[in-house]
Every structure is written in structure tokens, then in C-alpha cells.
């Protein structure tokens, strides 16, 4: 960890001003400190926002929920409204990391966490994301946990968040503040695909700080989060599905599906959902949706299995969402 100037922000505008001057924002620190210790990230200045008053979970006028950027993963998962109205979000959060980490990790930080690609973490290995132009050791290396959708020839990193996957299914929006003012964007637009600039991961401008995440009113239907991983707990997803599905008379009337572990960003494809709407709930609908989801999927050897696993996980999630409860 290189030496850095440490300062504490006295408000979101102060944090944004310091970030605009190049400071890196520290919130929970569960990923940033990890990366700083390895010098994958080596900021000269760190601005600590952990004590800013961005910890509220409040109803919005239209019946949704505004979640402060510094609400911890724990507090969000425990929130009674989230547990009852947005259980997919609570489940996704609880499937991620550990209590110790969730007690520290924040909503904004979770969205901005970096990939778990092992080559990104190893400063002795080639990685276009960490060191643009150095190459991608993962492409022909150990890529078991890496992307089969949305990658490029330069980078196949996956976004590791569970929370963000649920939020995508919930059509979340993200509020931003910068010295230039505030704006709100769809979570769908926050992360960008690697293309030939894998070092660029979001649309955030220098000095832009996430202040809250806004959830629209809970959609009708059942919600579920299914996560497949290499051990029973405390592991990143190989594949995960956040699903919200409504059924009337045996037919799917509404569907929102987002996927984790497959792509450089929490993945959602409207055509997958379109393939389900109007279909009778059952394996055939799931197969059709999986065909759409995986039409362009591309494995790199070690992660080839994710393609059939995504199909199976989708089937499993849809069964959970559509079978009569026993």
C-alpha cells in the first residue's frame, strides 16, 4: 500500500470536490483496502465518506424506496420493507460475502466493487483492466469464474455483486452528485462493457459520487434469488439469477430476470423476458428464455460450463418462481 493523504469528507459536496481533484473515495473499504494492499489500486489521496449522512432507507413519493449510498449491506438486507416488498434484494444481499463484510460494505461501494478476476488481482500478471495494453492472461488462463456474456477480446472480467443483480431486476436507479450538480441514471446504464477500454467500468465522471439508489415500487409477482457457487457459503457466484415473475391462469404475465456471474455487469436482457411473457409457466418457457439469453454466449475453456449452468439455473429459478407453494 503506497502512502496516501487521508481526509474525511464533511459532506457529499466535499467528497465530490475531493474526488474531482483525484482522490479515491473510501466508504466501507472492503474491496478498496483489499486492492490497495496489493497495490492494484494505489491512490495518492483517499477521502473517507463513511460517516456522511447517507444511511437512510426512506419511502419515495411513488411508493418506492430510496436507499442511502452508505446504507450497509446488513442494514439493507435487514430492513423490514426490503424483506417484505423486495425479498429478492434481501436474499441477494444475504447470499453475498459474510456478516462481517456486510456490516462494513455499503450500497454504493457494492455497486462499484471491482471484478474478482484473479489476474486483475495479481500485479505480476497481464491485465488490460489494471494495466491497459498489457494483455489479458485470463483469456487463455484460469477463467473458471469469468464472463461468457458481454466480454471482449480485451477483457472477460465478471462483476461480482449479488446485490446489483437483484437491483437490476428491480429496475433500480442511481442518484449521483458532482461539483457540477446532481443527476439520476438507470442502474442499467451505470456499468459499461469492457470493449477495448476495460479500465473504464462505469459512466461516472471524475468527481461523481453515488448518493443513493432508488427502487421503484415493488413489481407484482414472486421474487427469488438463486445463486450457484463452489461452496455452500462465502463464495462468489458462478451463476446467479434474480427473478420476479407474475402468473395469471398458468401463464406468465410479467417477468424481470437479471443474471450474475455471467458478464462484466449485472446482466439483463429484455428479450429474455419477452420470451417468457404470455407463455405457460414450465420448462419449455424456461428453455426458450435460456435460448435467447445464451444465443451470443461464448466460453473460454475453463468457463464453458457456465453456459449450460446458466440454462439450468434459469430453469431452477423459474420453477421456484412459478410452482405452487407446497
Amino acid at each position, binding site marked *: 500500500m503506497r502512502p496516501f493523504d*487521508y481526509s474525511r469528507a464533511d459532506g457529499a459536496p466535499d467528497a465530490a470536490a475531493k474526488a474531482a481533484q483525484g482522490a479515491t473515495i473510501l466508504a466501507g473499504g472492503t474491496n478498496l483496502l483489499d486492492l490497495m494492499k496489493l497495490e492494484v489500486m494505489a491512490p495518492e489521496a483517499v477521502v473517507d465518506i463513511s460517516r456522511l449522512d447517507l444511511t437512510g432507507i426512506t419511502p419515495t413519493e411513488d411508493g418506492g424506496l430510496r436507499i442511502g449510498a452508505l446504507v450497509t449491506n446488513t442494514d439493507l438486507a435487514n430492513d423490514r420493507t426490503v424483506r417484505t416488498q423486495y425479498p429478492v434484494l434481501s436474499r441477494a444481499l444475504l*447470499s453475498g460475502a459474510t456478516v462481517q463484510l456486510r456490516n462494513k460494505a455499503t450500497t454504493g461501494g457494492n455497486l462499484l466493487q471491482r471484478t474478482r478476476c484473479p489476474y486483475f488481482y495479481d500485479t505480476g500478471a497481464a491485465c488490460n483492466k489494471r494495466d491497459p495494453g498489457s494483455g489479458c492472461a485470463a483469456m487463455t488462463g484460469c477463467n473458471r469464474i469469468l464472463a461468457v456474456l458481454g466480454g471482449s477480446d480485451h477483457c472477460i472480467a465478471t462483476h461480482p455483486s449479488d446485490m446489483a443483480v437483484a437491483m437490476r431486476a428491480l429496475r433500480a436507479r442511481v442518484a449521483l452528485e458532482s461539483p457540477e450538480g446532481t443527476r439520476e441514471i438507470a442502474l442499467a446504464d451505470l456499468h459499461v462493457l469492457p470493449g477495448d477500454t476495460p479500465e473504464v467500468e462505469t459512466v461516472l465522471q471524475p468527481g461523481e459520487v453515488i448518493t443513493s439508489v432508488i427502487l421503484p415500487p415493488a413489481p407484482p409477482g414472486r421474487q427469488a434469488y438463486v445463486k450457484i457457487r463452489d461452496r455452500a457459503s*462465502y463464495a462468489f457466484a458462478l451463476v446467479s439469477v434474480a427473478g420476479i415473475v407474475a402468473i395469471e391462469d398458468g401463464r406468465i404475465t410479467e417477468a424481470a430476470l437479471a443474471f450474475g456471474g455471467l458478464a462484466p455487469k449485472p446482466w439483463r436482457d429484455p428479450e429474455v423476458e419477452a420470451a417468457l411473457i404470455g407463455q405457460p409457466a414450465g420448462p419449455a418457457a424456461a428453455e426458450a428464455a435460456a435460448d435467447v439469453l445464451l444465443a451470443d454466449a461464448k466460453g473460454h475453456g475453463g468457463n464453458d460450463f457456465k453456459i449450460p449452468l446458466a440454462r439450468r439455473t434459469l430453469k431452477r429459478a423459474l420453477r421456484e418462481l412459478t410452482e405452487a407453494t407446497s
Partner: protein
Amino acid sequence: MIITLTVNGRRTELDLDPRTTLLDALRHHLALTGTKKGCDHGQCGACTLLVNGRRINSCLALAASHDGDEITTIEGLGKPEAMSDLQAAFVQHDGYQCGYCTPGQIMSAEAMLAEVAEGWPSYVTRALDDDPTLTDEEMAERMSGNLCRCSAYPRIRQAIGAVRDARASRTEAAE
């Protein structure tokens, strides 16, 4: 930089390199070595302690971020001649082997018992809108942030379960 920590009820002022983690502040600057470093990357739980009553991985926390906070470490729970109930249960149930992850396990367990009492759900909680009860499976999930390579997991859970039961019967008796 100068920061103040209240560790196990004792207020201390420290002059630290800003890079110093909460874990290293305790181990290198306060000679409180009960909190262990197993991975230094939030991947093992050996460094678990309580900040303002909540458990965190102290390796992934800058000491500077916790200026003014109340820290509870394993040394704050009990002493060899006056162990806390959890500490005594770990000895009785052999909830350890090499002992290195043990302080983190115990701090985690202490926090977990409070979390369940406060109604926190977990990944394995069946109904999110209900208050959870601390079954063996619930304990296993909630303690999964504390690796034990000696693999004392079943006995760690037995030790915690014994304390859960003992505290519950004490509470009942008091009511």
C-alpha cells in the same frame, strides 16, 4: 496522524501511519495480539472484532476510519482466570484445535447471538418476514465468515449452541 480509539473500555490516543489497519493498530501499536491476522484480505475472519457492537473484519478497516469508535476485542470478553461463558464453552466443547482462528470465532459468535436476538435474517432463513431462530444450520451459515482449517466447525457450533441454550434459560428464569 493522531486518532483515538476506545478499546475494551479504555480510551487510547495513537499516532499512526494512515495506512495502518485497525488490526495492525491493535497488534503492532497496542500489543493486543488476541485479534489474529490470517489473510489480511477479509477472506478468513480471524481478525473479527466488534466496532460499536457490530462484528467486522478489522484487516479491511483503516484505523483512521474508526477514530473515536468503541472497539471490543477478545481481550475484552474475559481473561484466562475469568472466562466469559462463550470462552468457557469453547474450552469445554473443544471448539478449537490450533487456537489461531479462535478469537475471531468467539467474537463472531458473540455478535451472532445478538444479531439473532435483534431478528437479523440469514441466507438460510426460510421466511424473511419472521424472526429467525438459531438452528444448527443458521449457526453454520452465520459463522461461515470464520474459516477454521483445523476444522472444528461441529464443535464450535456445539459450544455456541450450549451458550445459546444457557443464556435462554437464564433469561427465562429471570422472567
